[in-house]
């Protein structure tokens, strides 16, 4: 039996190894293109925003109005650190001095029952809708119905948007009538000093999982999404921080309930409808508005999150599969969608196959340790170099991490990412894909720690 497996693995390694390596190089080669694209885009953007005065936006009666939608479920730790469960509304009532109100709203989209409505006496702009739990998409749809702004900002309740984040996000809408949605950068708040709902001092977390996620987020936003801006447009806007034309979202039917990737699904649908019906369809990523979010610090929660993200990605791509290589959908159908299908979705499968074969090869003595090590380092080396270049991009543009400690930590996490962490994410993503194929659609629970005033190292 052992001989048969060994023969099979040998054959596979001989024939498949080259393909796996080629795949790695091709993917990283494409990342290189994205990196160059984002470098050019970032340079253009930095020149565009240098010395700009955004105060005019605030004072103008012509500025588009924005409603912020923040679905909250089991978020009492974020709002106030009392640690109890399912008291979100009670905590809100106490914290923001809410009083029950009545208002007129259109039930544009079918949603779960709205129980009551409150307005804050302290902050009159704050309206809280208490409704039956129907998931995030359902809550956002209720928010869309209550919202009055021309634009709606969908965010997570545990996200901290920087003071001028919305002013920065709104710019593409002012410069082009073709823009339907914009997304900003999400950064990791773990390890930073938070006071009064604002990040006072940024710092790279010393916690392994949180630290590696800082590097991951920088790479995803600074060269992933920014690069696509120039190469044909994005199809992802983070659910934690996105700005949409309210009317366009309502016309598209709002957020879908039966998917775990409701944020990406909406963006892809808006893009798709713009090709099918005409109308605005540009999805712009703006790098300078920043929202800070808490990332998981345990493998259990992180695994659930990555599993869910990958199920969401698979679900969205499956729902809109007719776009694949369809010239009717322009660049999105011919380039962007295939990239997400063949690189983002299938990469963990290829990577898993490569890793498993390598381990089997070692176990069966088909591959020697030196060769395995060399193969492993070659496959992940370019990715590490690209991540290091992303750190330079951050440094050239926004340089939020200024101290030597932060730089050293960032580089350290970039190196460590491929030594176990990445393989774990491969496992979680493959599991997500498997679960998608089996039809699982639950969210899983995110454990909130809340933004405690953590003292950042000096």
């Amino acid at each position, binding site marked *: 039996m052992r001989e048969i497996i060994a023969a099979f693995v040998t054959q596979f390694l*001989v024939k498949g190894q080259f393909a796996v390596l080629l795949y790695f190089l091709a993917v990283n080669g494409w990342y290189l293109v994205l990196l160059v694209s984002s470098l050019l885009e970032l340079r253009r953007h930095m020149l565009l925003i240098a*010395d700009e005065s955004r105060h005019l936006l605030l004072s103008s009666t012509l500025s588009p109005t924005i409603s912020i939608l923040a679905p909250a479920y089991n978020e009492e730790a974020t709002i106030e650190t009392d640690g109890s469960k399912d008291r979100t509304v009670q905590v809100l009532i106490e914290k923001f001095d809410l009083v029950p109100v009545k208002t007129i709203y259109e039930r544009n989209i079918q949603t779960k029952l709205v129980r009551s409505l409150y307005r804050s006496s302290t902050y009159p702009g704050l309206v809280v809708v208490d409704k039956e739990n129907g998931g995030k998409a359902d809550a956002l749809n209720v928010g869309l119905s209550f919202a009055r702004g021309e634009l709606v900002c969908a965010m997570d309740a545990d996200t901290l948007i920087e003071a001028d984040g919305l002013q920065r996000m709104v710019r593409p809408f002012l*410069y082009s009538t073709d823009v339907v949605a914009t997304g900003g950068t999400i950064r990791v708040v773990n390890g930073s000093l938070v006071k009064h709902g604002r990040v006072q001092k940024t710092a790279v977390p010393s916690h392994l999982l949180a630290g590696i996620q800082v590097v991951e987020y920088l790479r995803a936003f600074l060269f992933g999404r920014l690069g696509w801006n120039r190469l044909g447009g994005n199809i992802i806007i983070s659910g934690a921080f996105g700005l949409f034309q309210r009317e366009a979202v309502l016309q598209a039917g709002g957020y879908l309930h039966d998917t775990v990737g409701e944020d990406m699904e909406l963006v892809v649908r808006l893009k798709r409808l713009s090709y099918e019906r005409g109308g605005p369809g540009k999805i712009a990523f703006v790098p300078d508005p920043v929202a800070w979010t808490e990332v998981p610090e345990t493998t259990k929660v992180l695994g659930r999150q990555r599993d869910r993200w990958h199920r969401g990605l698979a679900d969205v791509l499956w729902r809109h599969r007719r776009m694949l290589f369809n010239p009717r959908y322009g660049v999105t159908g011919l380039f962007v969608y295939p990239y997400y299908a063949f690189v983002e979705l299938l990469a963990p499968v290829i990577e898993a196959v490569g890793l498993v074969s390598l381990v089997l090869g070692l176990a069966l003595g088909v591959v020697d340790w030196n060769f395995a090590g060399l193969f492993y380092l070659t496959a992940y080396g370019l990715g590490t170099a690209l991540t290091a270049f992303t750190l330079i991009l951050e440094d050239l543009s926004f340089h939020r991490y200024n101290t030597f400690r932060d730089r050293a930590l960032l580089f350290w996490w970039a190196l460590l990412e491929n030594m176990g962490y990445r393989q774990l994410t491969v496992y979680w993503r493959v599991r997500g894909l498997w679960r998608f194929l089996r039809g699982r659609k639950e969210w899983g629970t995110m454990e909130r720690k809340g933004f405690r005033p953590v003292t950042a190292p000096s």
Partner: protein
Amino acid sequence: MVSERLLNIIMLIEVALLALAVSLFFLHGVWLHLTARRMDRLSKTGRESLARLVMRGIVNVEDIEVLKNLPPDVQNITVLEISRSLSGAGKERLRFVAQQVGVVDRARALCQHRRWTHRLRGARILSGLDIPDPLVLKLLADRHPAVRAQAAEWAAAQPSVEVISAMLELLADPATQARFAVQNALLRMGNVIAGPLSTFLETHSDRAAGAGLRVAESVAEPRFLTSALRLSHAENIGVREAAAKLLGAIAGAEAAARLVEMLADSDSHVRAAAASALGRMHYWQAGSQLAERLRDPRWRVRREAGLALRAIGAPGTLLLRRALKGDDRFAADMAQQVLDLPEAAAG
């Protein structure tokens, strides 16, 4: 099997790339640190000299010399940061200092540069200083939308006939991506734009007219009435909607009569805007027509009609109560919701 030699070559390239990236990352950090320290020191000196020159109003040659000796970037930064909090005589003195130091000449040269990023920078400096330079006026017709938008921002502080007419032409430019900047600048110019804008509205009826109407609504001069009435018949829905809003802002019997007609417009956005405008005017004579709109098939029209009825006072409240007992359940539902609203939320 992939040959070890090939793997070694790839590996070497990757290591070289990684080493390059790491060196750049840390060297850039050192450079940033040193630059920040230098800039802090120079900016402090520049700010102190500039504050003495601008606040005290005494032309001190030594301070001018100190500013002249600063690097151009530091000069620009110090001048622009103080310009935001100055107006009147203080700004006049700042302009003088900027001229003496060479900031203005440099900005003018930048405005003529072939690269749009330089022209944008030049326009930003001259806008910050509110310098009435014809070079920026030319930039209103620049190829790049960001430069045009910046020139429009500059124009807000230069409300001459020539500038206003150039700005209005930008409203008519279908390709402009700087429409917001233009509209906003026109608005900031104040009532001085009323005459030229009125003439503009008389001669346009396309999307540009819609953009003009939105500016006119904020100025709300009676002289826009004729154009608003004409444009309320335009083919473009957005233009008709904007005309309804302008009519509501101007008010008067003629405007009200046309708004009542517009309650029967084929588009729901226009009907809703007309209902809202009548409520804004507290035009109680339109009560029965507004009550009729409570039966409108579109929710937004029913909502605006309900709120307008509430806004016109007792007659409107009476009509809302009647709708409660009517045969149309949508009208009754909306009437109920409006009547349930607390006093502060009505209208």
